[in-house]
């Protein structure tokens, strides 16, 4: 049984086709990283899952039931764009109002629990409008957590967070899925952060799912490269460029050679050309580079 199963989903906005027969499968207990460039159809898909907009075709099932089923909707928590809070009310009052809307029994306890999960107990008395962006994002997640939802849909929850906020958010999301009953769909442009928490990925482009994979499959798909440093980086680059097809200098000052078989091969080759290697290591490309590679490959086709 999957938490989400989408087949042939279509959505048009006037003449524009936002989703073109999109398929998507999110297994239960996953943190599903939903990736795509701006305007690729991520938010549209999420809004359809949340029942906010109506598709023009296709099938959306949540836990094997139609996504419009009232009982299954009651098990969905959402943070899309903004948490839907009233700015002049305190965090606590906003949460209590949401708890009332959800007809939660024992709301004080539930609100306390949700605020504790997102490490916001201390800010309950703050007015929502006085909270920082990072705090607002966490409040949004706390609101989404009310009513013990089985499925959380979070649109760009990592936006605007500082390093500490990112760490807390990572901890929160990994805590949520620990019991295996909860599933999280999270879209983000911060692929490096997403890679630290996601167990599954879906990459969407122009309203179509390019690929879906598990974190293990991504790991296996990511090419290895050899990174090295020498005293004369420019000369090294030009020498390596004569033998290897893809040689790039990365942000941290290493030369990356993508199609070398072994580091020893490069060290020997450079030594033969009079260059001494001061540091060398092998590594794998991350999600961000994988994504860029995938996009470039599709562009070429």
């Amino acid at each position: 049984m999957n938490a989400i199963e989408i087949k042939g989903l279509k959505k048009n906005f006037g003449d524009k086709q936002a989703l073109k027969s999109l398929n998507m499968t999110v297994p239960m207990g996953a943190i599903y990283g939903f990736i795509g460039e701006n305007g690729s159809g991520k938010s549209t898909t999420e809004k359809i899952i949340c029942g906010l907009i109506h598709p023009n075709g296709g099938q959306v099932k949540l836990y094997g039931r139609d996504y419009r089923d009232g009982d299954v909707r009651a098990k969905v928590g959402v943070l899309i764009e903004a948490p839907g809070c009233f700015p002049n009310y305190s965090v606590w009052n906003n949460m209590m109002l949401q708890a009332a809307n959800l007809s939660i029994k024992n709301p004080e306890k539930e609100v306390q629990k949700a605020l504790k999960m997102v490490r916001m107990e201390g800010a309950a008395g703050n007015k929502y409008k006085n909270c920082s962006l990072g705090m607002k994002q966490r409040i949004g997640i706390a609101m989404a957590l009310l009513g013990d939802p089985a499925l959380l849909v979070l649109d760009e929850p990592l936006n605007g967070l500082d390093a500490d906020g990112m760490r807390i958010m990572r901890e929160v999301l990994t805590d949520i899925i620990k019991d295996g009953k909860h599933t999280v769909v999270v879209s983000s442009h911060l692929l490096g952060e997403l890679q630290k928490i996601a167990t599954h990925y879906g990459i969407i482009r122009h309203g179509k799912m390019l690929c879906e994979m598990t974190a293990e499959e991504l790991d296996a798909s990511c090419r290895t490269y050899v990174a090295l440093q020498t005293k004369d980086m420019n000369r090294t680059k030009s020498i390596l460029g004569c033998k290897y097809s893809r040689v790039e200098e990365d942000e941290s000052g290493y030369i990356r050679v993508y199609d070398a078989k072994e580091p020893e091969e490069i060290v020997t080759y450079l030594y033969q050309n009079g260059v001494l290697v001061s540091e060398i290591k092998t590594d794998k490309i991350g999600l961000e580079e994988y994504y860029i590679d995938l996009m470039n490959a599709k562009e070429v086709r």
Partner: protein
Amino acid sequence: MENVHKLKFESPSFIQRLKGMLGVDFYRLFHTPMFYIFLAIAAFIPALILSTTGMENPDGTMSPQLYTNVWNAIAANTPLYTFNSIGEYANMNMVFIFGGIMVSIFIGHDYKSGYVKQLFTTHAKKQDYMMSKSITCAFAMACMCITYLLGAVVSGLLVGLDFSVNVGSLLIAILSKMIMSLGWASLYTFLNVIFRRYFGVSIASSFFFGTGIPIIAIGMIFGNAAGSVLNIFLYGSSVYACLSSNIVTLLVCLVVSVAWALIYNVLGTILLSKSDVY
């Protein structure tokens, strides 16, 4: 598979949902300055009308007095679907015009804050939303009727107007107008659902219908003789609740208000169900 069995899929009952949403809407109503501002506006309208009419102008002439009897600021003596002077028009029905603006602001906040997204994603059904807004806003408008009454009485005392009236008819007229709040609130909720993406248009449409212009236009064409037919409309029934009201007036207002509330709630629910939420 094992985990699926652990998940319990059940949603709250209709009563639970409505109770929860009404709780939220009433909390918001009582905790927003807007509600108290509109209560004050409702009290200020009769005070303004009663205290400025019949006053001496700077050139020494007297401005025409709209009312000699204070209760005419609440309702006309007989149902007047069309009118010859502003005095025949300006009565408690004006609460419904300002009430429309209040409803537009109240519902506008739902969309502006993103609250409806949160609401419609989870438990809320569209008819719960329509019902909750209609009931809350009807209550607010009924409160405005009360402050309007207080404003009229206090300014009438200060100006020294006549207070003689058939108390029974007056009470029925006031009660009938308060009952009409439900129909008006439902109309405004429906209009705000239609124009939810255009706040200015929402307010303008509420104002347009609140003034009763379409019904007044029909009244002007067919005269007050068309009254019994015009009573099927919200403005018509609101005018019907006058100082010569009897129990039939109350029943007519009750039936018309509830009927239109149901119609607008059903239409609003259908519209919300068929349209996307942004």
